[in-house]
């Protein structure tokens, strides 16, 4: 029988566990309402949050080596829990996520997608991995093309590979 970790809630052990995102996803949209009230740029702030998450997360885990399509699939699955479809056309990367962890419904008073945070987080993972010589993939964030939070049927995230 495996011995449970001495401190199961330490970040290195949390990395090996799963958590339900339903409540915190809803809370993120409450935060977006607060951001709208405060008249800040919601996408910019969500991007900052996503980058900070990736910077901390990358102290405990980095994307595995491999070709961009496969690696992106694994990063999405490992971090967000989503099985995504990745299309690579030239330098353009298109990720289709039908069950995005941060988007579920369209709220009438919100026009922003929670997954703005995810796209910034994913791109930052590769910045961190490159800084640590763990990958040669240079992935730049382009944006969120479609989102369930904007009324679409799925979320579509766009990136660009740069040399």
């Amino acid at each position, binding site marked *: 029988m495996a011995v*449970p970790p001495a*401190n*199961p*809630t*330490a*970040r*290195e052990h*949390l*990395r*090996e*566990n*799963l*958590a*339900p*995102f*339903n*409540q*915190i*996803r*809803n*809370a*993120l*949209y*409450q*935060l977006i309402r*607060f*951001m709208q009230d*405060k008249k*800040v740029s919601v996408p910019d*702030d969500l991007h900052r*949050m996503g980058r*900070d*998450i990736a*910077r*901390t*997360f990358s*102290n*405990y*885990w980095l994307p595995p080596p491999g070709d961009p399509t496969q690696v992106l699939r694994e990063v999405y699955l*490992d*971090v*967000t*829990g*989503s*099985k995504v479809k990745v299309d690579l056309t030239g330098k353009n990367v298109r990720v289709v996520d039908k*069950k995005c*962890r941060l988007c*579920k419904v369209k709220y009438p008073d919100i026009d922003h997608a929670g997954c703005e*945070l995810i796209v910034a987080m994913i791109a930052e993972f590769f910045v961190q991995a490159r800084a640590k010589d763990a990958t040669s993939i240079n992935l730049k964030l382009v944006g969120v093309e479609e989102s369930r939070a904007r009324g679409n049927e799925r979320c579509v995230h766009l990136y660009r590979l740069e040399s």
Partner: protein
Amino acid sequence: MRALIPPGVVGEEKSDMSKIFDGVITRFSRFVGNWGNALFYNLLYREIFNEIFLLSGKNQTLALAKFREVLSAGALESAERHPQIFWFFPDTPEKALRYLNVLWQIFLGVEVGEYEKIQDTEPGTGRERYVFRVKHCPFCESYGKDAEDVVRFSPKNVGSEGLACGLVAMIEKVANGYILRESGVKAQVTETGCKLRGSPQLEVTVVIIPEAEWSERTQYGEQRQRRSKWGVDLSTIDDLVNKPLDKLKVQVSELIEQEAHMTPQEVFGLFENYEADLVRILGFLPVHYLNERGNLVEKITRNPTFSKLIGHIFNAVKKSAPLIVPPEVAQDYLNVFLAFIEDLAPPEMVARYQKWGSFDYFNLVLEGAGMALGDLGVNFVGLKTNFWEELQTAQKKNEDIEKSITKTTNASGTTSFQSPQLLNLIGEVSELIFDLMALPSKMLVASSYAQAKSIITARGELLEALETRLDNIFNIVNQLREE
């Protein structure tokens, strides 16, 4: 009252049945949940607080209050989508708090771990109070080690709320909105010890407040319905298991008098000389009742593969029951039935039932269930000798079935068929049924040939097997949903 509680055991010793219900509720929450990495969750929680802190002009008091509001609103929205998760929680604070671990898992996906529970009264007010000292805080353990942990919590305010106040607010909102809704009291849940403020552990204090004095009169409260229509909650399960007939007899009598305007003796008297039919009805009705809840059975049997699958599983159970279930146990089922009808049916009818053999009753119940399944679309006549043959035949003829079997090409270039998750699911469901059917044999063998310790071991093994099977079934269903 003080107790240091090991992981997985909450408040006080629970029965095996309650533990299985804990498992079912936490697995149901997994089923309806969207799961991602726990570290991502943890850091997203931190970032929501950081953002609120920045937008609140770096005023920590304002930020903590807003953080509570944001997280609790998120939890309430989820509870409104899946209120059935909370139907089975007991609605008295003392009993509900025994299920802290279940709530913790619903929100965080992990067990609460070691904690100390102190039950006393709040100084000054004399209100009922519970203090939980949780050894490992899910949010503070690693906080401060990474550069992005920017907000600093002052140790000067040891008793003030800290980073876990968002989680605490989620529990408070759901407890008051759903679990304690009809109890006449509310729970004020606050974080009274934060590791980041120098407390040796996370401390959560719950004070029970009469509803009339509760300041937060929620505007949604009136529309919300917490209780299950079945009138059952986790704390009454042990009573139901120990004295199932007493409660059932009263309910059946009331139902007969209310719906048929006859006494139970008059109704059961209608079946005099048709005793076998009455028993068949006992197998027949539950299947139709199950179907009444959204035509569940009919929806399943509309799919020819599932219809055949149900037919095969039912036939396997019917054939195996006399081999696996000991006659003593079959007799016990008959005895339970006799105990149930002895006050409700005419004495002559009861006397005829008393002459029955141990498997007569058992087989007739199964026969009734089979008739109901036939009504609802299971075609027993056309079944092949086993389900694998059905799949092979269907694979040749039916494009839909072919799609359910994943075609793969291995490294050597040859093509093979990979067992689909559907087959794994069939296997797990069948194993679960046979594990349940084998229980009485295991217990009897253990009690006849060994010591009490073996009986306990057999029971423990079965519970472990059930938990594993349920886990596997939930995992496979989740994978099927993902695909």
